[in-house]
């Protein structure tokens, strides 16, 4: 029996060391945090706005859901979507879905995020994710990158806003189509989409 205990301890130590190695390999640029699967309930979180006031995800979510958008002050792709994001916020607020901007870039201080939001006339909430904790939790890697959460708190869409930075070339309005399907109570036909964007600059 002692031998069995020793063997069990040996195996347990291998498992512990192995998992530590996996955890250690997690947050670098070759192995970015994985996003939650579609259908996952997103746990509530709190982040400060650009004036330092804390808001929970739940408190900012509209009666029919929320769109989280990871945004940037400097990224030209994110900035190329400013007007589209504001229009989206206005169009869907009336439908009970609130847009929430999140800035997780370690290189963009809250003062810059505040002046950028004012300059671009954002009417939606913009939160500052110091230490990129929420970007890590949601597996966000680029700007702009969006997450649609339904009224029940479930993730129903994760990905791009549309297929082109250039509004003249848009042929696939993925985010709006997902929102419209969600609001109509239909299954989401396309639950995500990839697009080129700027890497979120994580705290080292």
């Amino acid at each position, binding site marked *: 029996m002692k031998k069995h205990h020793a063997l069990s301890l040996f195996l347990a130590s291998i498992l512990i060391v192995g998992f530590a190695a996996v955890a250690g390999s997690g947050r670098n640029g*070759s192995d970015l945090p994985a996003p939650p699967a579609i259908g996952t309930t997103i746990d509530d979180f709190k982040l400060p706005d650009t004036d330092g006031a804390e808001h929970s995800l739940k408190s900012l979510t509209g009666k029919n859901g929320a769109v989280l958008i990871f945004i940037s002050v400097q990224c030209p*792709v994110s900035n190329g979507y400013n007007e589209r994001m504001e229009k989206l916020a206005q169009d869907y607020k009336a439908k009970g879905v609130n847009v929430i901007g999140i800035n997780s870039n370690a290189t963009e201080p809250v003062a810059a995020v505040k002046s950028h939001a004012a300059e671009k006339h954002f009417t939606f909430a913009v939160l500052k994710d110091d230490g990129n904790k929420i970007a890590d939790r949601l597996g966000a*890697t*680029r700007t702009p990158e969006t997450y649609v959460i339904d009224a029940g708190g479930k993730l129903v869409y994760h990905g791009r806003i549309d297929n082109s930075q250039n509004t003249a070339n848009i042929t696939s309005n993925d985010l709006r189509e997902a929102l419209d399907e969600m609001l109509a109570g239909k299954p989401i036909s396309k639950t995500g989409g*990839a*697009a*080129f964007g700027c890497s979120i*600059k994580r705290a080292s």
Partner: protein
Amino acid sequence: MRLRFPLLLIGLAAVCALAGFAAPAQTPSTGVASRARHSGPFVPDGLDATEVSEIDLEGLKKILQRDPKDPRPLLINFWATWCDGCREEFPDLVRIDNDYRDRGLNFISVSLDEVTEIKTTVPDFLKQMKAQMRVVLLNVKDPEPAIHAVDETWDGALPATYLFDKDGKVVFKYFGAIKPAELRSAIDKLVRGKQ
């Protein structure tokens, strides 16, 4: 005593499973590796990076498919002039290209700038960087099929860097500005020593 053998088997299985988990960057991603083993047309070196050629999705796939007659390890960097991290890492990539070209590294730089900038912003930046690697500009209406052709796990965040060995396996990938020492260490394992 009878329990020992099954326990050993479980232990071995656990170690194997963990080894698989613990080295995701060392294992080929399905999207690239499976395609990269197939043959494809030879992609010649271009030493005048100021001439940026336009490619479409098929052109990108050809690059990823490799040429069995070209056994050189392949480094691909996806970037754009509008991307801070890309501009930040570019001098390191130029140095890596200069240091490893004669040691057998094939480096292809894929720009995601607008095609309207193929004769202006992109070559201007390359000239400023004194870049000599082959540079292509990917012009696609929808980026999603191109991104997935490279790697199913990539969502398009730039910059992104992939290193393939001679068999087309991804041996290194990095999202965000590279750490030069890490990339050099990965390349060192694939190319011949300094002459």
